[in-house]
C-alpha cells in the first residue's frame, strides 16, 4: 500500500469511499508519524489522538454500513490552534489562553467535520498569529522540515500547519492569513494554500488578530486538495456578518487543466524587484510554463502597493491592540516579548492614520480590480526569500537589505489589504534545496479561476510533489 501519510486528501477520500483503506488505518498512520517526528518538528500544541481514533472508528462504521459519505470522509485534519474546538483547549499559541476550552466548534471546523474530516489536534503557531516568522517561545519553535541540519523558519503565523503538512503529519491543515500567514508558510514549506476572498469563508469561532484583515483557509499539498477543502469550508454564515451570500461553486469542477487563453499578469516592479535572483527566476519560469501551455502572459505593475505596508500597519496594529488591550494591561508579562512590542505599537497609531489607511485600502483595491479587469489572474512571488534560519534577522532582497519580518510579509499583505483571493504554490527549489513559492491572485470571489491556474501549473510541473527528507 502507498504511504498513506503522503497521499493527497483527494486520494484518501477516494480510497476510503472505495473501501481500499479504512479511516482507522489512515488516522493511525498519521498518529504514528506524529509520534515519531513531532518531538523535533514541534508542530502540535495539543494532540487529540483518542478522539481522532474514535472518530475514525465511527467513520469506518459508516463506510461499512453503506451510509452516505461526505466529500472528505475519514480524511485527517490539523487545526491551527486559534480555531475553536468544542471541549478541546484553544490557546492561540499563548500562555494567556493556555487553559481556554471552548464550548463549540468554529463554523469551519463544524463544516469540515460534517464533510467527514477527522481532527488530529491543534497546531503550533505564532502567539495570537501576530508575526510571520513562525516562532513560538511558549510551545517551541516549529521546525521547517526541508532542512535537517539547520533549524529554519516554517513561516508564520501558521507555522505548525505548514511544517505538519509538509512533513506528512496531516494531509490538510487550516491556517489563518492576516498579512500572509497561510501563504508564507506554504511558500517556505513547499505547500499549496489559499487565502480566499474576504467574506468567502466564515471567521466565526476563530480567534481574531485583525477583524478586517483576517482570512481563513486550507493548507495542503496540491491545488486540487485546496479546491476540495475550500468547497467544504466556504459560504455564508450568519455568525460572521462579513460573509457573502454568493453561492459556493464546486471548485473541483474548475480544475480542467486547461489554461489556453487564460490571461495572466506577471507582477513586475515591487514584486519581482523584491525577490532574490533564484525566486525571481523561478516565478518568471512559471510564467513561461503557463505561456507555453496556452496562457496569454503580460506584465503589469501595481504602483499603489508600496503603501500597502503602511496601510496594513495602521489597520492591524490598531485592531490587534483593541482586541488585546485588557490583557495588555493586566497580563503583559505573559506575552511573547516580540508580540507585546507589536501590540504596544498600536497605541501610537492615530485615528487619522487608521482612516487614511482605509482610504489607501480603497485605492489599492481599485488598482488591483483594474489590473484584473483585463486579466484573469496575477502572478507574483509569494515571499521574496526562502526559509531563513530561525536566528536570522536580516535578509538581502533583490532591491536591498530588509529585516526578516518585513521581507516575509511584503508581497502577501497587499492582498489582505485589498481582500483579493490568492493561492500560494511551489514553483521551484533553491540550489540549497529549499522550496520557492509563488502566488496566483484573482478577482473577488473567483477562487475557481485561481485554483484552475494553480492546478494546471501543477499538472505541468512536479514541484508540489517533492517531499522533504526527514530523519
Amino acid at each position, binding site marked *: 500500500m502507498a504511504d498513506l501519510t503522503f497521499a493527497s486528501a483527494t486520494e484518501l477520500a477516494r480510497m476510503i469511499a472505495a473501501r481500499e483503506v479504512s479511516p482507522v488505518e489512515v488516522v493511525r498512520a498519521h498518529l504514528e508519524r506524529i509520534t515519531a517526528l513531532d518531538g523535533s518538528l514541534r508542530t502540535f500544541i495539543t494532540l487529540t489522538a483518542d478522539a481522532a481514533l474514535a472518530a475514525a472508528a465511527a467513520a469506518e462504521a459508516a463506510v461499512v454500513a453503506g451510509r452516505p459519505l461526505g466529500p472528505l470522509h475519514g480524511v485527517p485534519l490539523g487545526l491551527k490552534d486559534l480555531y475553536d474546538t468544542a471541549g478541546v483547549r484553544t490557546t492561540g499559541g499563548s500562555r494567556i489562553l493556555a487553559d481556554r476550552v471552548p464550548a463549540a466548534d468554529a463554523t469551519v471546523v463544524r463544516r469540515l467535520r460534517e464533510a467527514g474530516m477527522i481532527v488530529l489536534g491543534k497546531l503550533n503557531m505564532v502567539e495570537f498569529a501576530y508575526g510571520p516568522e513562525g516562532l513560538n517561545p511558549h510551545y517551541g519553535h516549529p521546525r521547517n522540515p526541508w532542512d535537517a541540519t539547520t533549524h529554519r523558519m516554517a513561516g508564520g503565523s501558521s507555522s505548525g500547519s505548514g511544517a505538519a503538512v509538509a512533513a506528512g503529519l496531516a494531509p490538510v491543515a487550516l491556517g489563518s492569513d492576516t498579512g500572509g500567514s497561510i501563504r508564507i508558510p506554504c511558500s517556505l514549506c513547499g505547500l499549496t494554500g489559499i487565502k480566499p*476572498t*474576504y*467574506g468567502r469563508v466564515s471567521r466565526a469561532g476563530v480567534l481574531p488578530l485583525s477583524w*478586517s484583515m483576517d482570512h481563513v483557509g486550507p493548507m495542503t499539498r496540491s491545488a486540487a486538495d485546496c479546491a476540495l477543502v475550500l468547497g467544504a469550508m466556504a459560504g455564508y454564515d450568519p455568525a460572521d*456578518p*462579513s460573509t*457573502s*451570500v*454568493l453561492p459556493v461553486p464546486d471548485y473541483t469542477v474548475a480544475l480542467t487543466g486547461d489554461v489556453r487563453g487564460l490571461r495572466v499578469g506577471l507582477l513586475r516592479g515591487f514584486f519581482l524587484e523584491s525577490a532574490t535572483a533564484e525566486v525571481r527566476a523561478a516565478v518568471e519560469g512559471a510564467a513561461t510554463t503557463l505561456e507555453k501551455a496556452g496562457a496569454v502572459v503580460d506584465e503589469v505593475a501595481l504602483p*499603489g502597493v508600496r*503603501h500597502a*505596508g*503602511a*496601510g496594513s*500597519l*495602521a489597520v492591524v*496594529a490598531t485592531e490587534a*491592540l483593541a482586541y488585546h*488591550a485588557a490583557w*495588555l*494591561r493586566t497580563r503583559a508579562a505573559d506575552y511573547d516579548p516580540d508580540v507585546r*512590542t507589536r501590540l*504596544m*505599537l498600536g*497605541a*501610537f*497609531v492615530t485615528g487619522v*492614520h487608521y*482612516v*487614511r*489607511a*482605509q*482610504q*489607501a*485600502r*480603497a*485605492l489599492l*483595491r481599485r488598482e488591483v480590480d483594474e489590473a484584473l479587469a483585463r486579466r484573469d489572474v496575477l502572478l507574483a512571488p509569494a515571499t521574496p526569500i526562502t526559509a531563513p534560519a530561525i536566528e536570522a534577522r536580516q535578509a538581502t532582497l533583490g532591491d536591498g537589505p530588509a529585516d526578516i519580518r518585513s521581507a516575509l510579509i511584503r508581497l502577501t499583505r497587499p492582498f489582505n489589504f485589498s*481582500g483579493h483571493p490568492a493561492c500560494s504554490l511551489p514553483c521551484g527549489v533553491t540550489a540549497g534545496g529549499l522550496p520557492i513559492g509563488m502566488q496566483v491572485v484573482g478577482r*473577488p*470571489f473567483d477562487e475557481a479561476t485561481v485554483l484552475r491556474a494553480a492546478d494546471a501549473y501543477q499538472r505541468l510541473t512536479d514541484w508540489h510533489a517533492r517531499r522533504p527528507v526527514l530523519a
Partner: protein
Amino acid sequence: MSQPIDLETMRRVAGLAGFEWSDAELEAIRPLVDASLRMLAGLETLPLDEVEPTTQYRIL
C-alpha cells in the same frame, strides 16, 4: 509626523490609551514607533482627497 517622537509624548499617548508603561518599556520601543510613524506619514502623500475610506466589505 516628521519629528522623532520623544519620551514625554509617548508617556502621554500611552496614558490616554489607558496604559501605564514604564519609561524603560517606552524607550525600548521608541525606535520602532519612530520608524512606524515615518512609514505612516507616507499615507499623507497619496491622492486620497476623493477616496472614501473602506468601511464596508463586498457583502454580496
